[in-house]
């Protein structure tokens, strides 16, 4: 079987000079080596949707940079779509799409359509094929009038729809997504996730995603690679991971009076601020709506927020289980 992505003992270490204190330090420094990625091995099949997750500094961004060709590894090997990324970056660029949630690839002053037109030339695309793809995506993503609106006047959700469109217009075989839903509201997140999942399924697109939002991982990816301290801790299907580690929700109730008092199985109280009750809910035992209904029946609730546990906690649980 030929894989879309392979990594074999892929490693990256950085060296920097650390100066000590005092006047002697002006004349001497110590060379420090940091191992950002320490010999990771994995393969990704064509059409697979894989999340690489881990706490900050775990090595996921470094891994993605090496796989996309913008960072040379210290040792090891990797191929992406049969190419060595850091040696054949330009050839690879025609075949991959990239979305960085916190960086725009569109030109702010101009309508998105103008940015798309420039990208058509950048990727040497036939005008008719390009127009057909834009038409399809425009319909699927309800871009419509957005296409002729200056990008800087768009909401974050609208801009992200255009960013994803821009990354797919040249028909890539593999899509790198780095925090694609960061900062978006619930509706916009759902639209982005649905689109990526369906587009990938319909076009056989391989997806490599990093995110701190566990819903991105659950709803888009069918496999999760967890990295920590430069090493792969867990590599398993999302279903399996969900059953074991993604079954928790954090519900915060704001109340004018006393703290909410609940005695339900699968619900544990966490430390909260004044007038705020923070509950950790095991959704395998009790449903979120049951918890909210019970709290509302108690009265005095002014506001409710539902969140995923921080990724650091999920990783911690996974890491603890792996040991």
């Amino acid at each position, binding site marked *: 079987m030929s894989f879309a992505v392979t990594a074999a003992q892929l490693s*990256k270490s950085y060296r920097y000079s650390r100066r000590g204190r005092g006047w002697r330090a002006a004349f001497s420094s110590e060379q420090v080596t940091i191992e950002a990625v320490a010999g990771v091995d994995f393969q990704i099949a064509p059409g697979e949707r894989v999340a690489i997750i881990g706490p900050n500094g775990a090595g996921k961004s470094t891994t993605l940079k090496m796989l996309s060709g*913008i960072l040379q590894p210290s040792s090891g090997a990797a191929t992406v779509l049969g190419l060595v990324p850091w040696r054949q970056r330009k050839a690879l660029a025609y075949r991959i799409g990239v979305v960085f949630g916190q960086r725009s*690839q569109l030109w702010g002053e101009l309508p998105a359509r103008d940015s798309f037109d420039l990208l058509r030339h950048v990727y040497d695309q036939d005008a008719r094929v390009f127009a057909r793809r834009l038409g399809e995506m425009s319909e699927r993503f309800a871009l419509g009038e957005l296409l002729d609106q200056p990008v800087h006047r768009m909401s974050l959700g609208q801009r992200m729809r255009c960013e994803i469109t821009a990354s797919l217009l040249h028909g890539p075989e593999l899509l790198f997504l780095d925090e694609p839903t960061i900062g978006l509201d619930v509706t916009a997140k759902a639209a982005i996730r649905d689109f990526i999942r369906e587009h990938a399924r319909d076009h056989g697109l391989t997806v490599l995603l990093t995110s701190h939002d566990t819903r991105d991982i659950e709803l888009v990816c069918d496999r999760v690679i967890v990295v920590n301290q430069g090493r792969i801790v867990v590599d398993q299907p999302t279903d399996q991971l969900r059953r074991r580690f993604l079954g928790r929700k954090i519900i915060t109730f704001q109340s004018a009076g006393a703290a909410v008092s609940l005695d339900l199985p699968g619900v544990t109280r966490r430390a909260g601020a004044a007038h705020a009750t923070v509950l950790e809910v095991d959704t395998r035992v009790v449903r979120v709506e049951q918890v909210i209904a019970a709290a509302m029946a108690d009265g005095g609730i002014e506001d409710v927020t539902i969140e995923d546990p921080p990724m650091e906690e999920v990783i911690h649980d996974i890491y603890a289980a792996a040991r």
Partner: protein
Amino acid sequence: MTSTLRRAEARSTLRAAASALRMGFDQTLAGWPVLAGRCLFFGLIMTVLSALWDKVAAEQVAGAIALPPGGVVLYVGATEWITLSLPAVYLRFEDDIRSGGLEIHLLRPKPYLLQTLALGLGGGLARLAALGVTAILLLALSGRAWPPLEGLAFLLVLGPLGLLVGVMLYALAGLAAFWARRTLPFQLIIQKLMFLLGGLFAPVTLYPAALAEVARASPFAAHLYWAGAQVMAPSLMGFLVGAGWQLAWILLLGAACLGLWRLGLAKLLREGTI
């Protein structure tokens, strides 16, 4: 790679650069209030400088230094026209390199350096067009003598070439971001040299002979002086010499930009972040 493939690739690279140039042009026009403000500023500067040079002419100082009295105002108009059209490309390089935004550009198949220079040049050309119209209006309102038609024709070639020299000089300052946190000090040095050796406010021929020769051979004169000189005292020979210097400096600065870019890129690919 065969020569046919190489030619096809070069053509596609140039097409993408032309598209970026058009994008830069459109983007600058889209920000028309800023452009209008720049045109007003051009008018203000020319009001002050023309008053200064009229006084110089009235006191016959210009005659003593062998410059045509009304010509110096036209010269300064041309050099200011180019200076005010110059886009701050160094800031774009600094921002992309220092913020990590460069990564997304490196994941595209066309060269970032060429695309960014084309984008900047496109913006500069939009300004040249808007400020050019302003200059014609100012000249018509001032009632001054128009420059010879051949001088204007030469200016239409030397002006954009001078702009390109300036874009490349600023690109060198911007590429310093691979090694320096801020590029402003480099830009300031280049800008002051443009003013001094480029002859922003007066032709470099006013300098002592040896210094004038050095200035005329510098990239800063290729940026400003040669275009200004042709509108003041046009001649085919002067035009050809000026265009020759400009083209030579465009090639040299292009090579310098490419060299600096390759060094910086190698550092980025090795170290991951700047």
